[in-house]
């Protein structure tokens, strides 16, 4: 037993978790005693002291858990000057299912850990959405009170954003990106594993907030101060949970950036990168620059809440609008963090499934960078009614509208890629085409929202709810489904059930529109969002929306069944079932533990479909493959034939 408690793993992790909690309690008790605050009352611990202990435990105990789990072992050895144990790769790659529950450093294992974990929280978040819609089936109170209702939609949004859309993209990219650029792994495998293991901490924290005294956090995922600085302790489960999700996100983004910059295979110039890699490069730039801002905004809330700081107390010269500025300086780019990787996935799928090169490859890459740049100049369009200074609204309206131009370039380029192709309309392609149409709708309502006078009327109504679900469900989630189906054979070595996949698509597509399209109308008619009760005139549409949303919820179960059943017993997948050129398809399904037996050499663009005998990467040494390679050769168009 002691041996198990000394070795890294779950037993030691939970032991450390207990020690961490006691450690937090000791600090609080000592500090309160020192300052003369009451600690013990009525034979127990004073409620305020209990809250303080809980809060500090939320902040510190997860770090103890991570240490116990072994996340820092190697670094500690190294830092302490002890002989580091030679890497035996015992925690690298998965041989049994148990290896997925270890501090595993293989990017393919981490990718699957990410995807499965985030889909788990997606199902939790979806369940909460079903409860929200059940409450909203009729005006008045159905089965939850106002506080619980506010908690339901707050946790729903937080889980979907921080525990599903953002990490699932990181997971998919974790799996395929190193393969695509011909690298054996990510640049920092241990950091990669650490990033993943911070994620369940954030998810469990946010979900567990329902058990906090006073209920879960109920201030929306935006957690506007001063509502959040004056809320029950459940609020801290969000404030602190976001720190872990954010730290995971930043570490992964750094990892992607270094991997993309330094670990490309010979011949893989930036202009030969698959667009998924470009998309994650752009996303990682956004994450690294923007995510510290949400960390800051939540630390401000934490300090106001726990230590009586006055960031957001107007009577003490605090500034309430500052919260919104700092928050949206992250949270608007976050919209692109949740969309750009999806753009990458769609580019991969459309090129392969239309059997044509991506139309305007370079503009596709440039438009990603344009979105990154413009994405930082539009945040205040979330604040047109916030009471900030008036003049800033006009420049923010113009930049917001202009960001539709690079997005439009992408949409039109995908359409041109489809044109005259040989379209394989199987499940991944259906999701990609569904994305094209639904995301266009979401983008259009985004332009409507950019127009200041229109936004002043519809902001904080169901029109917003409709818009964000068209962008994040019809946009991001459709691309996630597309990507999961597309790479499922590579990740699991099995084929999914095509008929169930198509059924899943059509049912979701119809139910999605039935659920969210009418929200545009009830929003413009004047129904505010985030309300558990509404005026009688909206009752008809809300009943219809609720019923549609239940069908939408059920359609997700088809996906879950298809994935689980196909993973267990689907037919074996070949190495390259889609006849794709990109490199992840040139190795076995699933790939060997170190990805490539030989370092591949890239000799052409990633999407040369229709060019006879075109290859993207070959498994020969660089000098043999390209004897006359001109250093720095750029455009695919300028390349000479092999």
């Amino acid at each position: 037993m002691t041996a198990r408690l000394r070795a890294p793993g779950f037993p030691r992790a939970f032991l450390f978790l207990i020690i961490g909690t006691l450690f937090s309690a000791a600090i609080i008790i000592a500090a309160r005693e020192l300052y003369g605050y009451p600690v013990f009352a009525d034979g127990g611990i004073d409620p305020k002291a209990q809250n303080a202990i809980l809060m500090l435990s939320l902040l510190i105990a997860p770090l103890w858990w991570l240490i116990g789990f072994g996340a820092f072992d190697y670094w500690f050895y190294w830092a302490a000057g002890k002989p580091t144990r030679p890497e035996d790769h015992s925690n690298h790659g998965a041989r049994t299912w148990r290896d997925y529950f270890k501090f595993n450093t293989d990017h393919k294992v981490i990718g699957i850990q990410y995807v499965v974990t985030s889909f788990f929280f997606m199902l939790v978040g979806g369940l909460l959405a079903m409860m929200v819609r059940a409450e909203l089936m009729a005006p008045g109170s159905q089965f939850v009170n106002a506080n619980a209702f506010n908690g339901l939609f707050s946790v729903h949004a937080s889980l979907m954003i921080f525990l599903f859309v953002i990490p699932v993209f990181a997971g998919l990219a974790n799996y395929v990106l190193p393969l695509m650029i011909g690298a054996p792994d990510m640049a920092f495998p241990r950091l990669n594993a650490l990033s993943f293991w911070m994620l369940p901490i954030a998810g469990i924290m946010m979900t567990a907030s329902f058990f906090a005294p006073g209920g879960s956090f109920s201030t929306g995922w935006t957690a506007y101060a001063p509502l959040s600085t004056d809320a029950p302790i459940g609020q801290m489960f969000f404030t602190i949970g976001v720190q872990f999700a954010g730290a995971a996100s930043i570490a992964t983004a750094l990892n992607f950036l270094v991997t993309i910059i330094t670990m490309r295979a010979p011949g893989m110039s930036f202009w030969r990168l698959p667009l998924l890699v470009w998309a994650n490069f752009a996303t990682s730039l956004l994450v690294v620059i923007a995510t510290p801002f949400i960390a800051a905004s939540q630390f401000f809330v934490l300090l106001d809440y726990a230590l009586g700081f006055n960031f957001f107390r107007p009577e003490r010269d605090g500034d309430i609008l500052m919260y919104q500025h700092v928050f949206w300086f992250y949270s608007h780019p976050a919209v692109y963090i949740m969309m750009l990787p999806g753009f990458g996935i769609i580019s991969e799928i459309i090129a392969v499934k239309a059997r044509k090169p991506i139309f305007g490859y370079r503009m596709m890459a440039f438009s990603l960078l344009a979105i990154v740049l413009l994405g930082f100049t539009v945040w205040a369009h979330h604040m047109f009614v916030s009471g900030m200074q008036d003049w800033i609204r006009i420049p923010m309206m113009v930049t917001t509208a202009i960001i539709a131009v690079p997005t439009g370039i992408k949409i039109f380029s995908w359409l041109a890629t489809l044109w005259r192709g040989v379209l394989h309309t199987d499940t991944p392609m259906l999701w990609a085409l569904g994305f094209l149409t639904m995301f266009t709708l979401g983008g259009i309502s985004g332009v409507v929202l950019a127009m200041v006078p229109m936004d002043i009327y519809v902001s904080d109504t169901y029109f917003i709810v409709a818009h964000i679900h068209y962008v994040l469900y019809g946009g991001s989630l459709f691309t996630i489904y597309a990507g999961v189906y597309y790479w499922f054979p590579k990740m699991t070595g099995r084929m999914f059930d095509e008929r169930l996949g198509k059924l899943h698509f059509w049912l979701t597509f119809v139910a999605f529109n039935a659920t969210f399209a009418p929200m545009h109308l009830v929003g413009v008619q004047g129904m505010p969002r985030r309300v558990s009760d509404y005026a009688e005139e909206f009752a008809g549409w809300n009943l219809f929306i609720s019923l549609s949303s239940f069908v939408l919820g059920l359609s997700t179960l088809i996906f879950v069944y298809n994935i689980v059943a196909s993973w267990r017993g689907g037919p074996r997948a070949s190495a390259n079932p889609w006849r794709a050129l990109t490199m992840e398809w040139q190795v076995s399904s699933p790939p060997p533990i170190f990805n490539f037996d030989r370092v591949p050499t890239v000799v052409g663009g990633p999407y040369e479909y229709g060019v006879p005998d075109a290859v993207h990467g070959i498994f020969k040494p660089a000098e043999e493959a390209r004897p006359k390679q001109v250093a720095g050769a750029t455009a695919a168009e300028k390349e000479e034939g092999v």
Partner: protein
Amino acid sequence: MSLEERAQSAGPTPERPHARVNVGQMLLVGAIASALGIALGLLIDWFPVAASEEAGPIDTLWDVLLIASIPVFVLVTTVVLFAVLKFRMRPGEENLDGPPIHGNTRLEVIWTAIPAILLVGLCTYSFVVLEDVEALERDRIEVRVVGEQFAWTYYYDRDGEEVASRQLVLPIDRQVRFTLQSKDVIHDFWVPAFRIKKDAVPGIDVTYSVTPNRLGTFPVVCAELCGLGHAVMRSQARVVEQQEFESWLAEVGQPAQDEEGGDEGGGGGGEADPKALFASEGCGGCHTLADAGTTGTTGPDLDDVLQGKDEAFIRQAIVEPDAEIAEGYQGGIMPPNYEETIPGPQLDALVQYLSEVTQGG
């Protein structure tokens, strides 16, 4: 040899007789679908009743946005559908690839420039609308709107003294400028019929102006999540003739005859009916009361908790709501200033009324 040349040298792509699109036909289908879409978009009754001059330009802007955006959506959808119909893989084409077209600079310039021009045009138009709806007039009345969890209080200027009211009454055809403030968290003062909303933020004054132009009663909604009672933080705005407004303003907050009450008071001057007062104060938003036909659940059910209680208890429950909290409910939710905003006699009548209708159970 460039990629294009290589593709050429391999001979033309195999003929796919079914995979031909008559672009004219596609454009026609797109144009018809756009026209139908726009017609449908304009036929739908999107907005609630309009009751301000600002509503006109904003509703027109909406129509313009519909007309500009529906063809974009139809264009994308039509191309996707035509591509699927015409270019989908047929049996025997399993190993066929499309032509290796890498781009077309002219097309790319076009689809960068046209949306950019369209968007700049829409922005310019929106700017004009914004200037129009935010223009201030000289002859306007000022109303200070103070939000708190979970009610609005309106302060009017009457000959230099400020009077408070729980009801929003506005004269028709005269611009009113609201100055929004908040006592606790952020609220958002929105009368959908007036089309304009802004946040009430603690610590700063936020202003906007509207010119009501329709007589009637319109809902007031809080549009920013402000806590437990956010959904029920609703009341009503009444737009009346100038004369009626003046007589209402003259009576509002008038020191009650037999009370020593200060200069703050409120409620509709002439309304003595306590049942109407119960409704106009928005009590029913949070409380269930069978006699008034309300079903709010944020606060305790009055039929239940007031049953068998004396008038003193009921009065305290109104003016000092946190003195005793019903089991299962939280304190700090009901506004603590009803003594200020309900004139003495009306408060007495309300207490008596509540006592009568709940006593019998």
